[in-house]
């Protein structure tokens, strides 16, 4: 009658279990954009608009010397990619808020899925469109003088994925902490996002700013990430890339520790 007999779920050793579970959490989340492709199309247009409208202004106001001899596009494009990653993965918690209210979060919490996979899977879903977006805007920019180094760009996207896991987990924790007070989530997310962005030199070179801004940028993990992406998009791998990878890994580790704590605190 029944297709399977009663049995316990097989548990695998630590990391294997996390990877296995992450696959299914990610897959479930991906069903949302895949079943509603319009959202994907709009998300592809957004960076193009930004690049097309902000890029020319940047070139004429700041001037070429600030970009270290590169073309404006070569300098600005990796910044846009980091920005999309930032906006996307910091939204991880906002999609969770809805499920916290209805009860599907609770259903999944009672399942054998490992805690960190719940966060990693969701964060990677916010990161996934970035792979398509990043490659697409790179291709579109080639006729305008952008030099495309595909392998470097792919590596850059992987580093952003690692960073995104950390930021996504923090966003997840924020959603849990602000449960039943949704406005707190948005307040904190917006309040933190913009200073972090500006102080990393994503949109305008931080070198053009006063000394205190430069000092502040040293304490911003995003700075190292943006520098790494600029180095990679310019076709080089060096010290900046390494520091960026380190900053991303630290963010991921901190994010996951904070996230798992938030989940456990939520049930006490």
């Amino acid at each position: 009658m029944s297709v399977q007999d009663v049995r316990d779920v097989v548990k695998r050793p630590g990391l294997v279990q996390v990877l296995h579970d992450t696959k299914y959490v990610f897959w479930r989340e991906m069903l949302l954009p895949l079943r509603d492709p319009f959202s994907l199309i709009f998300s592809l247009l957004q960076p193009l608009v930004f690049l097309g409208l902000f890029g020319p202004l940047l070139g004429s106001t700041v001037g070429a010397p600030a970009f270290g001899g590169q073309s404006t596009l070569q300098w600005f494009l990796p910044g846009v990619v980091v920005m999309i990653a930032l906006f996307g993965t910091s939204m991880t918690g906002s999609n969770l808020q809805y499920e916290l209210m209805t009860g599907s979060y609770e259903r999944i919490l009672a399942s054998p899925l490992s805690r960190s996979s719940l966060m990693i899977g969701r964060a990677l879903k916010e990161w996934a469109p970035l792979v398509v977006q990043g490659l697409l805007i790179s291709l579109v920019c080639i006729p305008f003088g952008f030099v495309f180094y595909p392998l470097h760009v792919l590596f850059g996207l992987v580093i952003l994925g690692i960073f995104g896991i950390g930021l996504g987990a923090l966003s997840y924790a924020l959603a849990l902490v602000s449960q039943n007070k949704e406005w707190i989530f948005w307040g904190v997310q917006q309040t933190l996002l913009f200073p972090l962005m500006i102080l990393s030199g994503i949109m305008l070179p931080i070198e053009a700013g006063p000394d205190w801004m430069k000092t502040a940028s040293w304490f911003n993990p995003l700075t190292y990430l943006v520098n790494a992406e600029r180095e990679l998009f310019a076709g080089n791998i060096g010290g900046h890339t390494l520091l960026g990878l380190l900053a991303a890994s630290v963010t991921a580790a901190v994010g996951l520790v904070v996230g798992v704590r938030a989940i456990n605190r939520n049930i006490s």
Partner: protein
Amino acid sequence: MIHTRKLTKNFTVKKETIEAVKGVDIDVAPGELVAFLGPNGAGKSTTLRMLTTLLRPTSGTATVAGVDVSADPAGVRARIGYIGQGNGGGHSFRVIDEMMMQGRFYGMNTTDAAARAQELLQSLDLTDLAKRTVIKLSGGQRRRMDVALGLMHSPRLLFLDEPSTGMDPQNRANLWEHIMRMRAEHGTTIVLTTHYMDEADSMSERVIVIDHGRIIADDTAARLKANLAGDLLAVEVATESAPSVRGLLGRAAAGGEVQENTHDGVVSFRLRLPEGARLAPALLKEMNDAGAPAQSLELKPPTLDDVFLELTGRNLREGADR
């Protein structure tokens, strides 16, 4: 299958400690079907959430399916199924997608998950809604989907928190048919909370009555009723017969209260009588012999609500208030 000792949960709300569950000892053997019955706020759901690792106990121990809930919560989750009070299906997802993913979460392969999903969709009357987005379902349809999600992986121990709330009688019957079939086929152990006394009464073999965070009774529904409540007997006689009947009923009630009401030349008596169905014929004969025949007689078997009233002095449905 379940053993708890002094299981306790305190919540701190605005610096005030609320004792939601006050040291309960519960033992459930494999294959049992147990209902936690009690008013809203009694601590049923809190107990269930501790057993399913969704809440950490403040103190005490609980072993579920052989695993300690505090030491290895993940191990417990791998051995149980849970249907909560809320909507298990994500509102933005399609019904069939959620069911398939649920199967994958519990380690089923695609073929098994698809077959099981079809089986459940059909018997819970959801086949036509498989591709519908959850938010477009009615309340009853969503509740059926919650049940389908919980049954996907055929757990050997299933927890249900207020499973039939919001379901119409037809689907409530379908739900129970499913639960009973799972039990018959797999020997599934089932623990549920309910505030529907008729459900606890007719479906469960064992009822644990919980009130104010404590277990106040634990037995089969039949024994609880027989021992604690007794049948309700209502007799009407003519006014002139009242004095002799009063004496007869007083003796039969053996110290219990006999209510009396007079209107339009008729006196009606009401009393609780253990084993009333067995005693009533003899009582009627005695009344006839005394020249005080009954004009009407009503005998009602007790309900679990009567049991609760007897235990707490409060009605189950209005019992939420302290």
